[in-house]
C-alpha cells in the first residue's frame, strides 16, 4: 500500500509541473496586450512605460530562463506582488482562502448529505415512482444553472417576501451564528449540481451492490430491509461515491467564484474578479495556480483515501 501511495504522489508531481507551466505561459501568449492592459489606451509601445511593464513581467527574456526563475519564486513562497495594493499576493490571499474553503466544505457536506440518501432511496425503489421523481429532480439540478437559481431565490425573496437573506460576510470567530447564516444559502445552492451528481452515482453503485449474491443471502436469512440496506449494502456502495467529489471539484471551484460574487463573500473568487477588473496580472496568476493546485491535491487525497478505505483497491 505504501508503494501505491508513493507512486500516486509522485505521479501528481509532473501534473503540477505542467499546470504551473500552463499558468506561467498564459501571460506570455500576447505580450503586447499585457502592456496595453497595464498602460491603458493610447500608450507608447516603445516608450519607457512599455519597457517597465515588460521588465516587470520578464516578457523580453527567453521563456525557459524566466520560467525557472518564476517557478523558483513560487516554490519559495513568493507569489508576486499586487499592482493595486502593493502587497505580496499571498498576504492578500490568505484571509480569503478561509472564506472560499468554508463555502466549498459546507457545499460538499450538503452534497453528500442530500445526494447519498436520495440516491440510495432511488435505488431501493428502482423503476417505481420514487425513482422517477428523484431522478428527474437530479437532472433538473444538473441542468438549471446555480447562478440562475440563486438569482431567482434572491429576486423572489426581495419581491414577494420582502425579505433579504443576510448578505456579506462576518468572520466565523467573531460571530459564528451570523457567519453560518450567511454561508448556508450560497453553499446550499452551490451544492445542488454536485448533489445531483452524487445522487446519480450513489444510485448506480447501490444498484450494482443490491444485485450481488451476499445481499440475496441477507434477504434469504430474513433480515429486515433496514438491516440489509444499512449494514450490508451501504458500506460497499458508498465508498466509490467519494471519487465523485474529486471529479466534481473543478466544477465546484468555478461555482465558488460565481456564488461569492452573488452573495458578496470576500473569498478568492471575488478577489479573482476584482484583479481581472483591475488588470492586475500576478494575483490572477496566483489565484488560478492556487485553484489548480487545490484540484490536483484534492484528487490526490480522494484517490489515497479510497485506497486506504477499500482493501480491494490495494494491489
Amino acid at each position: 500500500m505504501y508503494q501505491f501511495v508513493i507512486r500516486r504522489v509522485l505521479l501528481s508531481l509532473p501534473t503540477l509541473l505542467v499546470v504551473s507551466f500552463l499558468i506561467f505561459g498564459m501571460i506570455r501568449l500576447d505580450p503586447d496586450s499585457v502592456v496595453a492592459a497595464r498602460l491603458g489606451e493610447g500608450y507608447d509601445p516603445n516608450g519607457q512605460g512599455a519597457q517597465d511593464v515588460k521588465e516587470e513581467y520578464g516578457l523580453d527574456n527567453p521563456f525557459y530562463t524566466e520560467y525557472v526563475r518564476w517557478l523558483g519564486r513560487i516554490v519559495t513562497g513568493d507569489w508576486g506582488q499586487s499592482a493595486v495594493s502593493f502587497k505580496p499576493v499571498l498576504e492578500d490571499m490568505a484571509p480569503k482562502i478561509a472564506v472560499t474553503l468554508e463555502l466549498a466544505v459546507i457545499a460538499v457536506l450538503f452534497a453528500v448529505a442530500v445526494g447519498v440518501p436520495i440516491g440510495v432511496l432511488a435505488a431501493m425503489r428502482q423503476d417505481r415512482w420514487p425513482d422517477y421523481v428523484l431522478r428527474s429532480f437530479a437532472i433538473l439540478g444538473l441542468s438549471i444553472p446555480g447562478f440562475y437559481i440563486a438569482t431567482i431565490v434572491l429576486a423572489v425573496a426581495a419581491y414577494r417576501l420582502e425579505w433579504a437573506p443576510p448578505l456579506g460576510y462576518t468572520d466565523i470567530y467573531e460571530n459564528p451564528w451570523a457567519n453560518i447564516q450567511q454561508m448556508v444559502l450560497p453553499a446550499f445552492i452551490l451544492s445542488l449540481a454536485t448533489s445531483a451528481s452524487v445522487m446519480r452515482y450513489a444510485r448506480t453503485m447501490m444498484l450494482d451492490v443490491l444485485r450481488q449474491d451476499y445481499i440475496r443471502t441477507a434477504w434469504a436469512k430474513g433480515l429486515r430491509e433496514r438491516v440489509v440496506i444499512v449494514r450490508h449494502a451501504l458500506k460497499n456502495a458508498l465508498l466509490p461515491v467519494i471519487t465523485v467529489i474529486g471529479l466534481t471539484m473543478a466544477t465546484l471551484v468555478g461555482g465558488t467564484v460565481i456564488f461569492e460574487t452573488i452573495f458578496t463573500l470576500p473569498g478568492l473568487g471575488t478577489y479573482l474578479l476584482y484583479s481581472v477588473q483591475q488588470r492586475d496580472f500576478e494575483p490572477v496568476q496566483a489565484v488560478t495556480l492556487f485553484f489548480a493546485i487545490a484540484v490536483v491535491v484534492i484528487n490526490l487525497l480522494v484517490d489515497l483515501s479510497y485506497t486506504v478505505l477499500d482493501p480491494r483497491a490495494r494491489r
Partner: protein
Amino acid sequence: MAEAITTAPIGARSERGPSLAGRVLGFFVTMARRKPLGFIALVIVVAMILVASMPAVFATHTPEEPAGEQYQRYCLGPADSWLCPTVREVDTLLPGGGRVVPGSLSEPFGTDRLGRDIYSRMVYGTRTAMYVGLGAVFLSSLLALSIGVTSAYFGGWYDALVQRVVDAIMALPVLVVLLALPMMIGGATFPKLIVILGILGGAGGSRVIRSAVIGIRNAQYVEAATVLGATHLRILVRHLVPNIFGPLMVQATIGLGGIILAESALSFLGFGVTDPRQPSWGQMLDLGRQVSTTQPMQAVYPGIGIALAVFSFNMLGDALRDMLDPRLRGARGGFS
C-alpha cells in the same frame, strides 16, 4: 416454375439494404419509441438550431436598438418589404424596463432597462449560445479525437506524456481560465472563447475517447489490418475512428451543454463578450438580476433559455449514450 426461382435471386432486397436516409430515419423512429424524453430533447435542440440559424425571422426587433419606436411584425425576407413589414409605434418606456405595449405580441416579454425587446434578444442569444457551443464542441471533438486515438494506439512514453498534459488541463477550473486568460490576451472575443473552451473540453473528452480506443485496439480487425500491411495512419483513420463514433457523439452532445453553461456563467459575471448585437443569455440574466427587485420576470426568461438548452443537450446525450454506447453510463457535462 423452376425457372422463375432461378431467375429471381434469393435475397435481392437484403443485398441492397435500406438506404442511408432510411437508416437515419429508422434511428430516429427507434429513438422516439425507446427514449421519448431524449427525442423531445432532440426536437428542442433542432428548434434552437433553427432559431439560431435565422434569428431575423423569429425576432420582432433588432437586439441592440430600443423597441417601441418601431418593430417588425414578422420577417421572412428583406427588411421593409411586404415580407418583413416594419410598423412604427410611439410608446412610452417605463423606468426600470417593463412592457412597452402591455400584452402585445411584438414584445411578449417586455423590454429591458435600455428599452430593448427581451424576446428578440433571447432569439439572438440562442444564436450566440449555438455559435459558441457548436464552435467549441467542433474544436474539442477534433482535439479529443486526435489526442485520444493516438494516445491509446501508440501508448508508451507518448501516452504517459500526453496524459500528464491532459491531467494538468483538466485540473484547471474552466470558469477561472475563462476569466483569467482573455484578460491576458487582449479581452474576450467569441473566437478566443471558442478556442479556450475547445481546448479545455478537448482534454477531458480525450480521456473518454482514449479508454474507448483502448477497448478496441487489440480487436481482431485491427490485427488483420496490421497483418495486411496497413500503415498506422490507415488503421487510425479507417478502423479506429469509425468505431468510436458513438462515444464521440455522446461526448460532444453533453459537452455542448457544459460549454453553453460556462459561457453563460462568464457573461453573467460581466466578463463575457459585450457586443449589443450579439447578446448572451448570461449577460441578459445579469441585467435582469440588477432590476430584479422591481422587475423580477426579466431575470426569469434568459435563465429559462440557458436551462432549456443545457437540459436538452444533457437529455439528448443521455439518450444517445444508451442507444449508441452502453459502456459510458455515469459521465456527465458540467463546467469542466
